[in-house]
């Protein structure tokens, strides 16, 4: 009988000592958590996407509550989130620039040719490191979906070899734009619908040889646009979303059909 009692007492004693130490430690080393931080953190979506420029929602909440960051930096949360944060802190809400990602390539499978048969690791970054990728157009989407894997909102899919962003699911965090080795994804305001779906700076004749729907820099769109929103720079048309009124006239005149209306 005695050994059992000794064993129980010993273990209980060690447990008690450990418990007391832990209690004391948690009492003396407790960190005062700012109520504001908790409140702000609750308003945030919790995706930890990094669009605000901080290393996650927790850090952003800390900075906002401390007054070091603006309340409008959370892109996925949008206007509502900014309003919630502002209410929690008792300050005036600002306006959030809501963004969306746009893939500037429409060279789906079959529109251009493959230069070589790529057998390596199936990521865009790896493929890009071999002679700028397997496609004849060195500006084109590689279609291995680095952007798909980095998107936390499942907004991107690869369709016919080119990344496609679902505008309803896209929160505009910009993670895909950062990872794309071809820099094809641009962040534009959410209300913009017209975009030149090509990034090729090749000369017109060469683009024409490489891909059936690449921008050849013919200037037709620039001449058609009444608002001066579209301009051709280095053989590539670019839409300025701040001037564009989404009228769609440029879409009709484009001979190669690379200006597209995105929903």
């Amino acid at each position, binding site marked *: 009988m005695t050994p059992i009692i000794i064993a129980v007492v*010993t273990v209980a004693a*060690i447990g008690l000592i450990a418990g007391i130490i832990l209690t004391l430690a948690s009492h003396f*080393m407790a*960190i005062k958590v700012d109520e504001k931080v908790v409140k702000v953190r609750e308003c945030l979506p919790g995706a930890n996407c990094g669009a605000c420029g901080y290393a996650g929602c927790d850090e952003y909440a800390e900075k906002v509550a401390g007054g070091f960051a603006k309340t409008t930096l959370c892109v996925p949360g949008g206007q509502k989130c900014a309003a919630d944060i502002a209410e929690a802190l008792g300050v005036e809400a600002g306006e959030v620039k809501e963004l969306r990602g746009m893939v500037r390539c429409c060279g789906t499978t079959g529109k251009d040719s493959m230069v070589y048969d790529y057998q390596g690791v199936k990521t865009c970054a790896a493929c890009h490191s071999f002679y700028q990728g397997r496609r004849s157009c060195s500006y084109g989407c590689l279609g291995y979906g680095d952007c798909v894997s980095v998107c936390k909102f499942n907004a991107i899919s690869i369709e016919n070899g080119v990344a496609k962003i679902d505008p309803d699911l896209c929160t505009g965090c910009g993670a895909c734009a950062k990872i794309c080795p071809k820099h094809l994804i641009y962040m534009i305001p959410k209300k913009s619908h017209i975009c030149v779906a090509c990034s090729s700076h090749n000369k017109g004749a060469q683009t024409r040889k490489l891909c059936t729907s690449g921008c050849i820099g013919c200037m037709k769109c620039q001449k058609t646009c009444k608002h001066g929103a579209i301009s051709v720079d280095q053989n590539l048309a670019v839409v300025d979303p701040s001037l564009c009124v989404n009228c769609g006239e440029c879409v009709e005149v484009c001979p190669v059909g690379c200006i597209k209306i995105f929903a």
Partner: protein
Amino acid sequence: MKEMMIILVGSILVNNFVLSKFMGICPFLGVSKKLDSAVGMSVAVTFVMAMATAVTYPIQRGILDRFNMGYLQTIVFILVIAALVQLVEIVLKKYIPPLYRSLGIYLPLITTNCAVLGVTILNIDEEYTFLQSMVNALGAGLGFMLAMVLFCGVRSRMDESKNIPEHFRGLPITLIAASIVSVAFMGFSGVVEGLFH
């Protein structure tokens, strides 16, 4: 010094905790998908192994051995290590927030990991001195990190491969790969004798 080197190299390569002693298989399979989390986990394991050895060794020698209660070793060690990890977490949170953030969820995860318990008990069984125990704990942690990082590379290669038969995909092929890596580590047996004798 030579003795310490024998213990260190021995615990990293020859008696690798994961690949030779088959301890800590759970984090080995669970956290080896990504390199950064594998490294994070390994650093946390090394840290806790060293801390646990430093605390359990005096308890074994001072209390359990003196009062002839060696049979309580397992349960007392579990209790002490669990409490210790909690304490370390509180202290880190207060004084070294960056380290706390980088160790993240791995610290509480390894509270009752068998590799941590294993190294403390083995130190006693091998009758190491305190310093030797600490070296052994450090070596065990580094060996764990080596195994994790190696296997992480193997796994990322495997995930890319399209040639795996359908029924082997996922966990089965992971276990097979783990066994092959383990077989490879058997080649290290005898290395220590060759190096230091």
